[in-house]
């Protein structure tokens, strides 16, 4: 369970951005989360409130956009979805591929500032 330290990093990144823009507070943090980031959504949401305590983010909402894995399929020669996180094969033609284009994201994409 390392989601608390991840939540604290989110708060750090968001505070830094908010301060540099002269914001009085942060209402919403938008986060993009990939299935290969190693972070569990529920545990992160649970830790987030604690991490926000006594910061510019106090009382803010964490909006998580869960994305899917996208690989480059060597057979289709196109970006494709995979069968599952346990089976990194092209969802269209079944070719296995380790070439991951998306899915490791753990990124603050936007902030709603006051």
């Amino acid at each position, binding site marked *: 369970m390392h989601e608390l*330290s991840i939540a604290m*990093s989110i708060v750090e990144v*968001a505070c830094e951005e908010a301060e540099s823009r002269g914001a009085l507070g942060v209402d919403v943090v938008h986060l993009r989360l990939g*299935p290969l980031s190693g972070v569990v959504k529920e545990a992160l949401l649970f830790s987030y409130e604690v991490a926000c305590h006594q910061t510019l983010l106090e009382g803010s909402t964490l909006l998580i956009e869960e994305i899917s894995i996208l690989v480059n399929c060597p057979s289709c020669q196109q970006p494709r979805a995979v069968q599952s996180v346990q089976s*990194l094969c092209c969802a269209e033609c079944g070719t*296995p591929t380790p070439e991951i284009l998306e899915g490791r994201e753990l990124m603050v*994409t936007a902030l709603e500032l006051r």
Partner: protein
Amino acid sequence: MIPEPRLVEVRKNVLKQNDMIARALRERFRESGLLAVSLVSSPGSGKTAFLEKTLTLLQPRHRVAALVGDLATENDAARLARSHAPVKQIITGTVCHLEAAMVQNALNGWDLNNLDFLFIENVGNLVCPSSYDLGEDLRFVLLAVTEGEDKPLKYPTIFNSADVAIITKSDLADAVEFDEAAARRNIQSVRPGMKVSKLSSKTGEGMMEFLDYLEMNRRNCRAASAVSK
């Protein structure tokens, strides 16, 4: 007057601080011409035994050192010190994984130019270490034959973050009826094309082939470093 809420685009990696330190470490390793290898696995998969054997076998021909992460004890460093290689323990306290800054701090006072191989043993944990880049050139994930063939399917993220899978404790495979084909199939399913080695740190089976692989990688990284100088 309360200002209107405004939406600003940010696009910042949450672990950017860790990633920056990891990048700096990777650059230092490259300039020193050493090969940095990290080990991840669940507790009890044989990371320390593997490392002890590896350090001992590499020692006559190479300059080797190790950092070992542990929640509470220095037992691993004491075990590894028997190989007579420089070893430093990183005690993480309550933290369940190593971060790049911990590696950076632990390397204080070490002249990396005097090293050929640096091993970094992560805390025994198949979940949390996957998120953190430590600046290593290669990440090995260990899977003991006693653990069950479906570990890769249960922990796909860490297998996906690693470069090589090592099946350890091969001397016990028959006793526990280890299904090697199933284990290899599961590894390939979560990380297609992954290199898989099978060995026993106890009997030495498979160790020599593996050391050849390590030495080959070291030569490649030394060559890359010479070209860039």
